[in-house]
């Protein structure tokens, strides 16, 4: 369920915390396991993380459902997380989100039919002076325009 590579990554996080505090690594462990399993979590993968960290399944479940970065439904290989909070909104984010939805033929929280891209509307990503902006997987893209969005999205393969 958890690969050797993933265990190695999780162990590096466990090493940061005091002895017997390995459950501190649960947030990263869930992210690592999520990345290995089609970018989403389910009851089995969450339990596997809990077992690996020697913590109750429900405690890992609580973390997995409290924080926003975990996916419990199908998402694309690329998740476009579009900020729609105040600074981005003032700079036209709503129109750009509509453009992106039209371009991809999906609504927010849906996945393109080829499984490549899904779009999420998210709260402030902390890049307000670069508004409007979105995040694709780990990367930020700022000062977006329709042209810029088209170029970025067309390059996703």
């Amino acid at each position, binding site marked *: 369920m958890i690969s050797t590579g993933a265990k190695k990554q999780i162990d590096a996080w466990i090493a940061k915390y005091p002895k017997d505090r390995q459950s501190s690594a649960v947030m990263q462990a869930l992210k690592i396991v999520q990345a290995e399993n089609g970018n989403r979590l389910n009851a089995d993968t969450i339990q596997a993380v809990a077992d690996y960290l020697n913590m109750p399944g429900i405690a890992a479940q609580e973390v997995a459902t409290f924080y926003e970065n975990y996916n419990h439904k199908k998402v694309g290989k690329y998740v476009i997380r579009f900020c729609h909070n105040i600074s981005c909104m003032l700079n036209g984010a709503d129109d750009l989100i509509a453009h992106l939805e039209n371009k991809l033929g999906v609504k927010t929280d849906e996945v393109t039919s080829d499984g490549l891209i899904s779009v999420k509307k998210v709260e402030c990503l902390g890049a307000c002076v670069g*508004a409007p902006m979105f995040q694709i997987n780990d990367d930020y893209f700022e000062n977006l325009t329709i042209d810029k969005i088209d170029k970025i999205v067309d390059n996703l393969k």
Partner: protein
Amino acid sequence: MNEVCFKNLTKDQCYSLKTYEASGGYSVWRKILKGQLTPEHIIDELKVSGLRGRGGAGFPTGLKWSFMPRHSDGQKYVVCNSDEGEPGTCKDRDILRFNPHAVIEGMAIGGFVMNASVGYNYIRGEFMAPFYRFEDALKEAYEAGLLGQNINNSSVNFDLYTHLGAGAYICGEETALLESIEGKKGQPRFKPPFPANVGLFGKSTTINNTESFASVPEIINRGGQWFADVGVENSGGCKLFSVSGHVKNPANFEVPMGTPFKDLLKMAGGMRDGAQLKAVIPGGSSTPVLTAEVAMSMTMDYDGIEKAGSMLGAGSVIIMDESTCMVAVLTRLAHFYYDESCGQCTPCREGTGWLYRVLKRIIDGNGKQGDIDLLLGVQDKIMGNTICALGDAAAMPVESFLRNFRKEFEYYIKHGKSMVKG
């Protein structure tokens, strides 16, 4: 401008250890390792400097550090709060990306002063580029022998680690942040006990904002009095202001406390497309909104902004021009707090939902007579009735938007459309 956290901003590889050391970086830390500085001296300098917590609460940093029971037994911790996520705020991201060593040195100094041999920097989960940049800087610092055990053959120990968040605004609240490091849901703790007594893993802990830590080395280097003199009374030093919204050149500016708002607006290129200023949120989405008239005569310091009727917060200045529909802005903010409430306290969990749903029905053209009173009633019932400040943060914008722009809300309810957008 740009004298402390942004000191090296324009230099080549401003984030590298080489650049940081070339401009005096780690000289305070090296003095500490040589036994030339005492914790008492550093706390005194910080008190003189007038440095107040840059995360939003504005609590004096020197005083906070003096609360730690440094002579008590047991492990103690310093924690840096880089869980930046208040709408309008994006300064800590730039500090992590462009001056990570100042954060490391500031945390190490804090560790020494408070006798805490371990530190954690909690970085929000979305900040992957800043996270990698900070990790690289940590590696540089360890390789240069600046961190670890018996550093440079001294008796000083300091190990520093990163912890990554996973998407929760509430983890910026310091006790929620501690819960999160412990691998739990980020729900704030009831206080007292305060973290200085019972903090991370049950041990004495002090939490400071990224900008606060990053300011410490320069303050100790140049003296508390120098920093105090840069600012104004009650607001020492300079501060990063994130200016976003309808301005020509949105950016982060590190300017002296007490800088007139109108000068800051000018630095950001002024209003875009020659539009008129309508409203300003001066300190991040939680702080009360101000009208243009009030904002234009305000100075950017704790007392100046308070006098204008708002708060300095994290220095997140959101500029709105005349085309802005205040009903739409407040609805979006209400959605934010509804989304981010941790669900622990009933007034906040239920109240933020009520605020959002009532505003949503107004913006959908289904507002009812009495909705304004309903909104005011709900925000009043949240205010002061929750464990942490998120409840107040959700309530304050509602009261100030309705007070300053009530006509727009009345119009929307009556006509089912925006007074501004038509």
